[in-house]
């Protein structure tokens, strides 16, 4: 059981940081066009540190599920056939590029164009990483995992957690800027408002995707192999409560709070409300996604003797 919790921590933390990095890159792209390089950097740079810390914690966690963690460095040697090797390799590359980009961004090394190109490259590696993470579970002996739902739900979790985590990061950053230098507050406030609006819209869309994928996945299990049926029975039976909360918390977080967040971004002077709503949405969705990943690992019934 401890092993499952380590894997939940690893996959959730890594996916959240990859998602956050991708969302940050997209937000900065639009912020730059709207308010210029300096304002975009001011808005996003501090959150890079948080992304790197979360990513580092995730990668560190993965070591604890190994029987022989000291030999972990050899885990990329079967790159040719093992998706696990590929996952680890792209995880390390993503972390290295992300760390380099963070340093370049914080200390303004290199030109702005070089840094932007590096950010997009890192984001691309992040997408490949999430794909590899999903492929790790596509084993012919594991019908509950060997489904198109695995990559789709890994990508939705990545983007949903990433978007809401960045929403929280932007809110915290704005609070910090306001205290330090009230002069820049107006432009930053406008950027924050429009960013949170799009985060709210993205969250509601991603929730919609989850609410299509989850029932279709359960139906596909229920009509599948005896092991797939057993997995569906586990989700509906012993883990029914976890499944219920997984759905309801995601709905409240990304749906209800997402909608209120969207509406609060349309009003003037609602910074406090926007901040509270995005933090609440993030916390609800985080718990929902952790429960979802818990179900993913616990409902697995292998084709074996």
């Amino acid at each position: 059981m401890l092993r499952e919790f380590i894997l939940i921590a690893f996959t959730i933390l890594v996916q959240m940081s990859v998602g956050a990095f991708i969302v940050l890159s997209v937000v900065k792209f639009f912020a730059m066009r709207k308010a210029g390089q300096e304002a975009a950097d001011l808005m996003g740079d501090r959150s890079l540190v948080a992304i790197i810390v979360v990513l580092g914690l995730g990668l560190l966690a993965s070591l604890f599920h190994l029987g022989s963690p000291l030999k972990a460095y050899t885990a990329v040697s079967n790159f040719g056939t093992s998706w696990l090797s590929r996952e680890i390799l792209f995880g390390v590359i993503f972390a290295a590029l992300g760390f380099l980009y963070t340093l370049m961004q914080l200390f303004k090394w290199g030109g702005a164009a070089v840094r932007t190109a590096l950010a997009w490259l890192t984001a691309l590696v992040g997408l490949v990483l999430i794909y590899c993470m999903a492929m790790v579970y596509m084993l012919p002996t594991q019908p509950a995992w060997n489904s198109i739902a695995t990559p789709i739900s890994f990508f939705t979790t990545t983007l949903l957690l990433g978007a809401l985590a960045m929403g929280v990061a932007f809110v915290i950053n704005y609070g910090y800027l306001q205290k330090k230098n009230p002069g820049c507050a107006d432009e930053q406030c406008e950027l924050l408002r429009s960013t949170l609006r799009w985060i709210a819209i993205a969250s509601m869309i991603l929730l919609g995707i989850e609410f299509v994928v989850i029932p279709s996945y359960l139906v596909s299990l229920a009509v599948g192999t005896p092991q797939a049926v057993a997995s569906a029975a586990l989700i509906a039976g012993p883990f029914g409560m976890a499944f219920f909360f997984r759905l309801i918390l995601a709905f409240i977080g990304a749906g209800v709070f997402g909608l209120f967040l969207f509406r609060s971004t349309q009003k003037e002077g609602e910074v406090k409300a926007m901040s509270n709503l995005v933090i609440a949405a993030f916390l609800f969705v985080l718990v929902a996604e952790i429960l979802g990943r818990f179900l993913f690992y616990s409902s697995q019934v292998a084709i074996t003797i």
Partner: protein
Amino acid sequence: MAKQLAFYFDASACTGCKACEAACKDKNNLPVGINWRKVYDYVGGGWIPDSKHPNILVPNNVFVYSTSTACMHCQDPLCANVCPAAAITKRDDGVVLIDADKCIGCRYCEWACPYGAPQFNEAEGVMTKCTFCEDYLAEGINPACVDQCPMRALDFGELSDLRAKYGSISAIEPLPSSAISHPAIVITPHKNAQPSGQGTGQIIKLEEV
């Protein structure tokens, strides 16, 4: 040199005594909780009321047979393909081996194997599994399980030879379909054997396996 060593198992002869399991455990000095060879007892059938005496139940197609399993040294070893550390290799003679020095103990092979062959050694932090008694083979001695069977239900040899001699059945209940990994196994089925994936029975006494 053999191209694909394989085990042969005669389910029609096996009495389920588990001597093979004990011989393997003894020869390889396996700790509690790890058995490279396992014997599963598979039962089916039921009881129906007698037509003249409805209070009396009579057996209806009741059967039990045993299946002795170990690593199948598959022709398409999923464990070796998925191992991130390239610690599992298939030798030229078909034997699939785990290199404990390379294994990082991630237990990914455990998820991939359809036979439960790779087993985690908690104390050593690495995966272990049947080695086909490769040290014995090098000395010209038979694998411990084969020689220990009182019913002569186990044999080994080149897969093509075994198939020529005993046929090509490689999956009966409770074994999974052989299409997953093409196991190097030849089975003579028990008279009550059910096809893989279409069984109506169940494994009993799992705590004894």
